[in-house]
């Protein structure tokens, strides 16, 4: 990049691209409705599984239904940004193999930014609504106080928690710059998001370490939620999670851009 541009410049570009994308989506209205129903159904199915489980067992590892619902709602919220804003990662593979990707390299804006801004996934909003509803319900049932501090913490921690899944998906998508048939990598990584809704305390130490530092899904909901669920006993990792999130995101971005540079060099 030749010049450094401000946030304002990028926001205005994002708005313009977003409007174009929404316009083209509006021409497939039936698809939008059915996809949204599908999204709500998957969330509902996860919800039903929870209810059935707790119908038989009152607590799991010391977590009762409301605490688990809090975790569930929190994970849905933290997974919304990756669904809404970074959905184009799923198309990266196709663009790279077909050679279309070269068009992004010629734009005078950040490639990562431009590529991601091209798609805004509307059905993620259904997930947002569902997650928000679940979280508020659990929040009220548990009786977490509503103060400036707790609401502020909730905003900061959901935002930073969302960075982890974005980072995972960036890395998974960027593998296509090196290996063929990387679609499987993305599918598997995406399946990991379902792990995020369970307390990481159910794992033994080996898997807990794996899901904390290698595939950081424990940070998507478990660690940040402890701020609200165990306010007297918050682990250090929780307080560090915003910082770790930024590090993970930056590393995934660097990896993604490394792939782009490699793509440039092959000149295909």
């Amino acid at each position, binding site marked *: 990049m030749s010049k450094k541009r401000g946030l304002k410049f990028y926001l205005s570009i994002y708005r313009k691209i977003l409007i174009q994308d929404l316009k083209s989506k509006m021409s*497939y209205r*039936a*698809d939008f*409705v*059915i*996809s*949204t*129903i*599908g*999204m709500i*159904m*998957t969330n*509902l*199915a996860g919800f*039903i*599984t929870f209810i*059935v*489980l707790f*119908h*038989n*067992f*009152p*607590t*799991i*590892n*010391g977590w009762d239904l409301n605490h688990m619902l809090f975790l569930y709602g929190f994970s849905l919220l933290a997974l919304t940004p990756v669904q809404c804003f970074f959905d184009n990662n799923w198309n990266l593979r196709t663009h790279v193999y077909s050679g279309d990707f070269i068009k992004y390299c010629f734009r005078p804006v950040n490639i990562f930014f431009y590529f991601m801004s091209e798609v805004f996934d509307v059905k993620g909003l259904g997930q947002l609504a569902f997650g928000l509803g679940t979280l508020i319900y659990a929040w009220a049932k548990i009786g977490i106080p509503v103060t400036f501090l707790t609401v502020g913490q909730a905003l900061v921690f959901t935002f930073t928690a969302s960075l982890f899944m974005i980072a995972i998906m960036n890395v998974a998508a960027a593998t296509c710059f090196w290996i063929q*048939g990387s679609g*499987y*990598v993305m*599918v*598997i990584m995406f*399946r*990991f998001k*379902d*792990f995020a809704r*369970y307390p990481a305390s*159910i*794992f*033994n130490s080996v*898997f807990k370490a794996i899901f904390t530092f290698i595939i950081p899904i424990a940070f998507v909901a478990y660690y940040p939620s402890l701020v609200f669920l165990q306010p007297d006993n918050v682990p250090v990792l929780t307080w560090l999670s915003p910082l770790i999130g930024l590090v993970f995101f930056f590393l995934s971005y660097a990896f993604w851009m490394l792939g782009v540079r490699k793509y440039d060099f092959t000149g295909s």
Partner: protein
Amino acid sequence: MTIRKYIALVRAGIMESLHFRLGTAVTLFANLIYLVLVYFLWKAVYASSGTDVVNGMTFTDTMIYLILATALFNFLEMFVVWDMSRSIQSGAIILDLLKPMKYRSYTFWKYSGSHVSQFILAFVPTFIVVMIVTKGAIPIGLNLVKFMVSVVLAQIVNFGIEMLVATLCLYTESTWGINIVKETIVLVLSGASIPLAFFPESIRNIISWMPFRAIYDIPLQVLLNKGGSDTLAGLAKLWGMQLGWCVILTVAGVIFWKISVRKITVNGG
């Protein structure tokens, strides 16, 4: 003559699926990690409950049920919905419709080939591992034969549902949406994500009359000698149910397809 053309299709399906060995390997690996989660989750669940047997299922029973349900899911997985919508969009469906064979049976036999290879490559190894790890918790005997019959019936039921849903693609282009709705409903109501024994009585009664149960729950009950499958009358009831849904879904699917196929619009066709 007819038999020969079916065998040729099954063979082609086997070859095609063997071509994607890497995919199978990755799927196996992903399942392994997925099962780690299932294992820890249910271990925590049973540890918190204080009793060993919940709804007639021990921890081992639940694990066997869920692991084999996942293995069955992988082996019965079909992409008819995706295939069909893709070939409608590209226009290739015309070629399939022109073949001197019904589209329905063409698809069925082609998929049967991949089912055979998936069964041997994915299901049998999983089954053997489970058998060794649980040290004889799975009864070995006539139930294996009964299980095979049940699996074949399950495959036909699954195909019936797939075809009904795929036919919807002739009306709308929303493949992702239709497919995710189908997948979710099947997974929850068939017992693949949580054993049906855990559902509350009243809901279980309703679910037990739906076709989804015939895909995963009935074969697994038969395999584990549960649900009355060890008696002749009980077995007849389970098989009768599967068979009934085979017939209903096939007839409904054929009629729905006949009505809908006139609707096909292919770009530039």
